[in-house]
């Protein structure tokens, strides 16, 4: 499928995504699982994706790198810096594909206590059409044949 270049759409067209899940654990336990590399490597990624390595400099302005080994064996690394760290309730970090020159996206992860459980909320914003195209080229979206733009004005 061919997509015509649309340079005029890139600055404004972005997508946002909100995903929630209630988990039987405390915010403290979840924050620890997310911010301790040895634990993070054990759970990161959807089924089929494994994490070959992760580096985290857990302080505001500190960098992180997350490895993603795809089912086809390709590796894609997500990189960014921490923008806000509020244990045990919130993490905010920039997000982009390594070696791909696109504007960074931003991910906010919240751990909200709900009785004995915790609602984990992931808010992924600034997903841009140009980033989608570049990531596709980088092999991150091996199976995705189309890309997109939307408005979040």
């Amino acid at each position: 499928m061919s997509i015509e270049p649309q340079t005029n759409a890139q600055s404004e067209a972005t997508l946002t995504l909100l995903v929630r899940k209630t988990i039987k654990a405390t915010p403290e336990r979840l924050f620890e699982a997310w911010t301790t590399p040895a634990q993070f490597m054990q759970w990161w990624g959807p089924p089929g994706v494994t994490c070959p390595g992760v580096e985290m400099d857990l302080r505001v302005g500190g960098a992180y790198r997350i490895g993603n080994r795809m089912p086809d064996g390709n590796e894609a690394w997500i990189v960014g810096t921490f923008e806000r760290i509020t244990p045990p309730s919130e993490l905010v970090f920039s997000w982009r594909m390594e070696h791909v020159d696109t504007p960074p996206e931003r991910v906010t992860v919240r751990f909200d206590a709900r009785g004995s459980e915790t609602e984990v909320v992931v808010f992924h914003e600034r997903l841009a059409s140009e980033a989608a195209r570049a990531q596709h080229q980088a092999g991150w979206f091996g199976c995705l044949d189309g890309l997109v733009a939307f408005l979040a004005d």
Partner: protein
Amino acid sequence: MVTELAAPFDMSLPSASKNLKVLESAGLIDRAVSGRVHRCTLDPERLREADGWLEFYRDFWHGTLESLARFVEEDEPDPGKDAAPTRATKNKPRQRP
């Protein structure tokens, strides 16, 4: 027509027009101009692609949070489900890599 598209929304015609321009530049709608009348048509194929792109990340994050849940819930078994929760299981060391 732009006036018809703007009518259901609480926004001015210029801002409706601005939003339509974003959609148009993103390839989600086509516009045909006849005199002063602009007719906008949805491009369902592009919308499908937009949805597919969002769907990828939605699946990625859903799957990742599922994995996180499995990891921490294995670590601390729910006493309600397990008939014989003991201090030993509760106090077992954290999983090691």
